[in-house]
């Protein structure tokens, strides 16, 4: 599976990328919403997941999500907002715009993996522990 990580902080991109790679994703990166749209245009098939920061220069995450949702060929991409914005109204806005999940910074790797599980983006377990 492939994921696109959109964040203007290189350090944050590195953290999210590492978590996603450990979860089995190939990761693409972009530093703002416009760059992320440009990356998507170059892809023959869109990535299964995009993790998107809210506050970024050039184009913010909410605008990016609005753009993605208007393009039918990108409809299969699951959108997760990953941001310090933690007001209830902001979360509602992001979900209404088309974000599928919302992860508030700071977060642990486990929290992100649990969100991927909720979104059905983790490989099915191979063994039965019981």
């Amino acid at each position: 599976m492939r994921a696109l990580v959109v964040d203007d902080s290189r350090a944050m991109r590195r953290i999210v990328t590492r978590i996603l790679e450990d979860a089995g994703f190939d990761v693409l990166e972009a530093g703002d919403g416009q760059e992320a749209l440009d990356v998507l245009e170059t892809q023959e098939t869109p990535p299964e997941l995009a993790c998107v920061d809210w506050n970024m220069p050039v184009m913010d995450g909410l605008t990016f999500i609005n753009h993605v949702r208007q393009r039918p060929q990108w409809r299969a991409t699951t959108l997760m907002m990953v941001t310090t914005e933690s007001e209830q109204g902001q979360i509602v806005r992001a979900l209404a715009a088309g974000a599928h999940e919302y992860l508030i910074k700071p977060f642990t790797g486990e929290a992100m993996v649990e969100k991927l599980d909720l979104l059905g983006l983790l490989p099915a377990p191979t063994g039965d522990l019981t």
Partner: protein
Amino acid sequence: MTISTSAFTFVRELVRAESAIVLEPGKEYLVESRLVPLARAAGHPDVDAYVAELSTRRTPSALKQVVEALTTNETSWFRDTDPYTTLRETILPELARNRPRKQLRVWAAACSSGQEPYSIVMTALDTPALAGWRVDVTATDLSEEMLERGRRGEYSQLEVNRGLPATTLVRHFERQGLSWRINQSIRDRVEFRHLNLTRPFPPMGQFDVVFLRNVLIYFDLPTKREVLQRVRQVLAPDGHLFLGAAEMTMGVDDAWERVPAGRSSVYRIREEQRTCVPW
């Protein structure tokens, strides 16, 4: 039952040396509630006796167990996902067909800070077959502090990040300062009560579903057996028991049978062991 200062200091120094995590004074309840299962499993009456032996013998594997018990991360909402999917899609609809009184009772038997019982209530609310039903959850734990946290129903940003879908967060929680509080209508469905699983249970009535997840692993075999036998006494004859993924009844209390349900398994009392009729 409270942990002594010397036992707390020993554990605090051990955890700090091994994990760099500092247990501030005031975390006695955490140390006690996490170590009680280990103390019991090692055959000690309380945590002080267990720590006293630990500090004398310093067995590396036992020390490691203590550090792990105290550094485990906070509980997740809808922990492991599958049990809650099974509850919503299989178990609750089945029970709904067999309960003319439109009432269900669920027991969360080691509820810690409340994520499990509240996840059960939210799951019931998402079960179409239970529209208009009354679902009550009894949540029990050994730690009064944990029960108090559960009753308040207030969680930090880090805690609501753990396994809680964003749609559920905005629907069932209210932002209060830096934390989030679960709505009154959900808090009202959960009764928090003190209970020690290793002692005879107080009168609790009968439950349709029991969550006893990731608790038995801390007990020795005879204690596991006693707990499972007592659970049978409070479970409806056609009720269901959920255990943790690494737990089972086989070889412990064979009056139970494991039944595949959805993507997980539940346990039911074998027909020949059912002592009373369904209500």
